[in-house]
């Protein structure tokens, strides 16, 4: 199993350009998440999905859109990139809804995408 993969690993954009980050997981996980990580800010949730065809907003959704057309893929789009979106982006997934006593809640993270917007 490849686990959680992200493409690309690095990208430099100019202000106003658009791009899509791809997150893929081969573990048949239900839930997938997109985070951004900035110095001193920790990991902030952008959007997440609790199943194929569903998405929901996180803490910092503005300027981003997402889609979950296939269970294994979660796409993060930037329609018009801004310098404030310079960050490291992490994707993560978990198997599904946990019930009490149901084993450890291990969230599997991708390796990250470093995005710079100039």
């Amino acid at each position, binding site marked *: 199993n490849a686990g959680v993969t992200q493409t690309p690993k690095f990208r430099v954009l100019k202000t106003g350009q658009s791009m899509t980050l791809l997150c893929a997981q081969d573990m048949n996980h239900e839930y997938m998440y997109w985070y951004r990580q900035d110095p001193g800010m920790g990991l902030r949730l952008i959007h997440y999905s*609790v199943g194929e065809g569903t998405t929901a907003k996180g803490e910092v959704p503005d300027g981003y859109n997402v889609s979950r057309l296939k269970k294994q893929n979660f796409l993060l789009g930037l329609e018009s990139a801004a310098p404030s979106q310079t960050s490291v982006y992490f994707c993560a997934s978990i198997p599904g809804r946990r019930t009490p006593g149901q084993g450890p809640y291990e969230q599997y993270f991708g*390796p990250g995408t470093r995005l710079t917007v100039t």
Partner: protein
Amino acid sequence: EDKVVQSPLSLVVHEGDTVTLNCSYEVTNFRSLLWYKQEKKAPTFLFMLTSSGIEKKSGRLSSILDKKELFSILNITATQTGDSAVYLCAVVWGNEKLTFGTGTRLTIIP
């Protein structure tokens, strides 16, 4: 507003010391609290806590949750240079929403 606060923001200690990292939270419909270790890349899972007072242990690391006072601590005993990392606390709440604290940067001096 839902939030997770970690303290201290950074900590520098000598090898062999014991450290305690703190995490407090205010969320609706709390489900569980997680600790992660982040070195240069993606966070790696350490513990999940759902019940008050039950200590989780893994080698020199241990953690406990207090659901009444809304906080958790992560202890590391006999620290080693390999423990140097950012330690992240995260809370699962609502419909599997996961909110992270800003992290504690731990530096172990040989």
